[in-house]
């Protein structure tokens, strides 16, 4: 086993274990912390996949912003922080069956994908993905439309969130 494989294995186990804990833990704050662990594991995977910028963005956006907001929400809805009733709804055996089918299907499909076992090609030494990424986002030949639309969407979400949070007098 190479060092890379060992790192991948450890990260994979931590990521999936933490994700499983998000789904099964009873304590909401713990769930949020496990979620942060999952996000962190994924950002390590991004590094392994040579997507350094996304790894940083993952930490900043998912861990720095989204998880913190979630913890805020948990604190604001504190009374139910640790529910005593059942944490699962009545239909959970069905859900288990659906999820198992989904998983089996996906794995079966992927094993048919021709590139499944091919080694990932090494990114060129000279390539500067960050520069390319930045140029692609604002170039009219590439992704300027989605980029502008994302900003419109964030504006709309901002107004929407303010509307919801507004105290009616």
């Amino acid at each position, binding site marked *: 086993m190479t060092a*890379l494989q060992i790192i991948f294995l450890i990260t*994979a186990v931590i*990521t*999936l274990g933490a*994700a499983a804990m*998000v*789904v099964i833990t009873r304590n909401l704050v713990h769930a949020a912390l496990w*979620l942060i662990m*999952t*996000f962190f594991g*994924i950002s390590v*995977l991004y590094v392994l*996949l040579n*997507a350094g*910028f*996304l790894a940083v*963005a*993952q930490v900043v*956006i*998912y861990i720095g*912003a*989204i998880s913190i*907001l*979630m913890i*805020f*929400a948990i604190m604001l*809805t504190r009374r*139910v922080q640790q*529910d005593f009733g059942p*944490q699962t*709804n009545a*239909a959970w055996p069905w*859900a*288990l069956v*659906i*999820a*198992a089918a*989904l*998983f089996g299907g996906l794995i079966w499909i*992927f094993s048919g994908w021709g*590139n*499944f076992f*091919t*080694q*990932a090609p*090494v*990114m060129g030494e000279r390539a500067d993905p960050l520069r*390319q*990424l930045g140029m*692609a*986002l604002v170039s009219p030949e590439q*992704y300027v439309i*989605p980029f502008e639309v*994302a900003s419109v*969407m964030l504006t709309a*979400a*901002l107004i929407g*969130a303010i509307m*919801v*949070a507004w105290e009616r007098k």
Partner: protein
Amino acid sequence: MLPVGYYIALSAILFTLGALGVLIRRNSIVIFMSIELMLNAGNLAFVAFARAYQSLSGQIFVFFIMAVAAAEVAVGLALIVAIFQTKRSIDVDQLNTMQG
């Protein structure tokens, strides 16, 4: 170097876990966390495919999904806190004021 398929398989497991969480949990915040797991699984698959094809567009997509996730979290958590103030509960089982 590792086969890209490993990352894809991992993303499939993550996606399934997320879907499972949405389907079995009652607390809206946990459900929302599970949805974030699903989105992250999509992101991971994108980055892995982008690596396999040496293409940037997969990474760009991830960037946009992060923006969408941020927008959703703002609106969603605002709604969850709002309903908590009115109902003192955020369990989806309790969202039963409307009956047929």
